């Protein structure tokens, strides 16, 4: 389809303190219906959105983190996480939840790719539209 555009959703804020993370995820899932070329970027405090085992019962808000696992079902297969942002926060790939999609052989493969800052800048520069949260 010739009118497919490259959309990048940039996530730079920790979850739960503000509504940005949840709003971003909702827009991604709604936008997925439009069959565009969608990527997600997580950098700065945005990397905290993908941390495993978030427990929000004590703060009285819905834990939307499990919803990231549904991205594959919506054909969102590219999740880029910035290495420097993880390292600056004392985090590693092992701290992140698994987000997968089915490949052409119907095998579950990881959608998450850890990229360095320079690569992240290139990914941003390759987009038609950037939506920031």
């Amino acid at each position: 389809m010739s009118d497919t555009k490259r959309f990048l959703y940039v996530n730079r804020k920790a979850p739960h303190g503000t509504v940005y993370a949840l709003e971003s995820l909702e827009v991604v899932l709604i936008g997925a219906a439009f069959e565009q070329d969608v990527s997600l970027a997580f950098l700065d405090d945005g990397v905290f959105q993908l941390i495993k085992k978030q427990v929000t019962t004590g703060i009285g808000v819905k834990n939307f983190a499990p919803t990231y696992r549904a991205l594959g079902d919506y054909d969102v297969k590219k999740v880029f996480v910035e290495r420097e942002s993880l390292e600056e926060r004392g985090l590693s790939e092992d701290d992140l939840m698994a987000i997968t999609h089915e490949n052409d052989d119907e095998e579950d493969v990881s959608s998450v790719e850890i990229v360095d800052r320079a690569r992240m800048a290139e990914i941003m520069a390759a987009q038609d539209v950037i939506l920031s949260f």
Partner: protein
Amino acid sequence: MSTLHTVNKSPFDRGSLASALAHALPGDAILLIEDGVVGARAAAQKTADLVQAAMPACSLYVLGPDLAARGIPVTDVVGGMTVVDYAGFVDLVAGHDRTQAWL
């Protein structure tokens, strides 16, 4: 193929300006708006150094009405930065392939 990066938060409050500059590629433009204009003051050594280091690879702009609203004279702005009005803001958006807002 270049990008306009907008920064609307003070560099004394958040890392948005530093992050934007760290991801900007040569030929990109960075425009400081709203509280982001605080980062344009030459007298603030640390943030002025940050902005200066991005030039001349990137072009740096600051929105005049937001400077004026905060009582920051144009003469206080880091040398090499360009002050634009709202029409200039529109020209910057139209003149780049994409705009990325560093919220």
